[in-house]
């Protein structure tokens, strides 16, 4: 094995177990999201109904609401708002993701040179291995930094984009591993999932904000049970943003692990992916200053941050304070490597 790995001990990757584990985690996070969302709707209904029925205890209003004796209008309206905004987001997302980047599309017969042909071939091979019905659109972004991402809310509208830097600095196998990672995002429908979570989270934060200011400026002469609600709303106003951010990040990291495991599943070897990840990581470390400028020069970089195979913030680029493991969309390089069977020697 090459020098790249001299600090790591190599074993095989149990991608089946990894896929299962992260599948469970996703269920948990998404379920929690829906529960919070519903709870928020119920909270508004409770607030509204308790305002007009001051003498009825909260528990009775709550029971009436969830058994539909009283129609929970607010819950239904927030649900409808969520559905509409999800639809709108899905419809416009593909136009958004490449915003600001300098790119061009590669097709089977428009490859300009050997490298572009190879890229297209590699993706087509992975498409065959994944059993996808459609070939994703392939884009090359003209940039020196090494990164790639996948997008599209269905197999049909799927696309992968890759920077020129990544294409030039990786060999065929490593390129294939990166593409396997991206196609795994597509076949696991991660884009749909994260978009859905993002939209729900945003609506949730808007709703709690409106509710908070409503309580603040509304009749604050509440008695008995109503007071409870006011306290809950005020606490949620400050806690909910934190909770959603943590949930989103947990979800995103879970899906990264899944895509890594999926890449190993498609290639049946963990070494190329591990090599590619290390190379991308090291490359970002050595060219930190230059890449920081390059990333900053490309407008709307934040649209893509979560979608990238490698989060630039991981290498300290964009220099936001406290890049701790807790607040990152991607797991650290060591954790990702150990999840696919390359553990750091002590």
């Amino acid at each position, binding site marked *: 094995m090459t020098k790249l790995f001299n600090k790591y001990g190599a074993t095989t990757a149990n991608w089946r177990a990894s896929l299962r584990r992260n599948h469970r985690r996703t269920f948990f996070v998404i379920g929690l999201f829906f529960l919070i969302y519903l709870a928020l709707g119920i909270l508004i209904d409770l607030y509204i109904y308790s305002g007009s029925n001051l003498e009825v205890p909260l528990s009775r209003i709550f029971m009436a609401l969830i058994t539909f004796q009283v129609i929970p209008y607010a819950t239904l309206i927030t649900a409808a708002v969520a559905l509409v905004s999800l639809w709108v987001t899905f419809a416009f997302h593909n136009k958004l993701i490449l915003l600001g980047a300098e790119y061009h599309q590669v097709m089977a017969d428009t490859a300009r040179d*050997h490298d572009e042909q190879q890229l297209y*071939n590699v993706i*087509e091979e*992975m498409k*065959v291995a994944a*059993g996808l019905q459609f070939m994703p659109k392939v884009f090359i972004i003209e940039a020196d930094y090494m990164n790639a991402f996948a997008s599209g809310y269905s197999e049909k509208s799927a696309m992968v984009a890759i920077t020129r830097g990544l294409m030039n600095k990786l060999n065929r196998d490593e390129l294939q591993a990166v593409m396997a990672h991206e196609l795994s995002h597509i076949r696991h429908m991660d884009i749909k999932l994260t978009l859905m979570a993002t939209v729900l989270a945003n609506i949730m934060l808007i709703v709690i904000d409106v509710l908070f200011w409503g309580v603040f400026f509304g009749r604050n002469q509440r008695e008995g049970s109503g007071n409870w609600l006011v306290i809950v709303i005020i606490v949620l106003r400050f806690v909910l943003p934190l909770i959603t951010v943590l949930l989103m990040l947990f979800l995103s990291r879970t899906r990264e692990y899944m895509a890594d495991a999926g890449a190993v599943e498609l290639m049946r070897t963990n070494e190329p992916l591990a090599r590619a990840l290390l190379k991308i990581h090291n490359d970002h470390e050595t060219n930190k200053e230059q890449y920081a400028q390059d990333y900053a020069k490309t407008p709307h970089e934040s649209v893509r941050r979560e979608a990238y195979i490698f989060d630039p913030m991981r290498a300290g680029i964009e220099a936001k304070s406290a890049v701790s493991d807790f607040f990152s969309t991607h797991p650290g390089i060591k954790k990702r490597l150990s999840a696919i069977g390359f553990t750091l020697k002590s």
Partner: protein
Amino acid sequence: MWIVILILLIALGAYIVMIYNQLIRMIEAVNNNEKEIDIQLDRRYKVFESLINVVRKYMDYEKSTLKDVVALRNQAQQSKASGDVKGHMGAENKISSILSGLNVVFENYPDLKANQNAMQLQEEIVSTENKLAYAKQAFNDSIERYNATKKSFFQSMVVSLFSGKLDFKFTYWQLDQDKIQEQEDYKVEL
């Protein structure tokens, strides 16, 4: 009380329908993936023909090679038509070995190697073989998923209810024992 039982029955029915549909999807995926192997085999044959034609310009690399490939191709198709799976796989595997011979030829002729067209052809060889291998892998993967689902608990009960429609025995794509031994013993001679 009756309502509860009714709801439970409906839920059970929905669950069975779900499992049924899931298994049908998996069976069709296996069928489609099997056809994908044929598609890739066919594609490989076409790539080969043009490849050998290019290489021929540079050297005498066996006018007979093309004949061999054509012969093997016919043999493969015949055995496939007659349902002789072993013969079919054997012929296809022999085409693969001719391919690796071609790659060695590329290495031995610097002129050829430097040629941009030849480089692209070499990339084409690698990609073609990879696609074939990945198609086989995808086929086996879909069988694994189908078998695992079919044999797990609850699903297996549904399968026994509709065994005519849901119970199939797919064979994994694999080499026969002699071939495995032969590949195992194979060494590159330089």
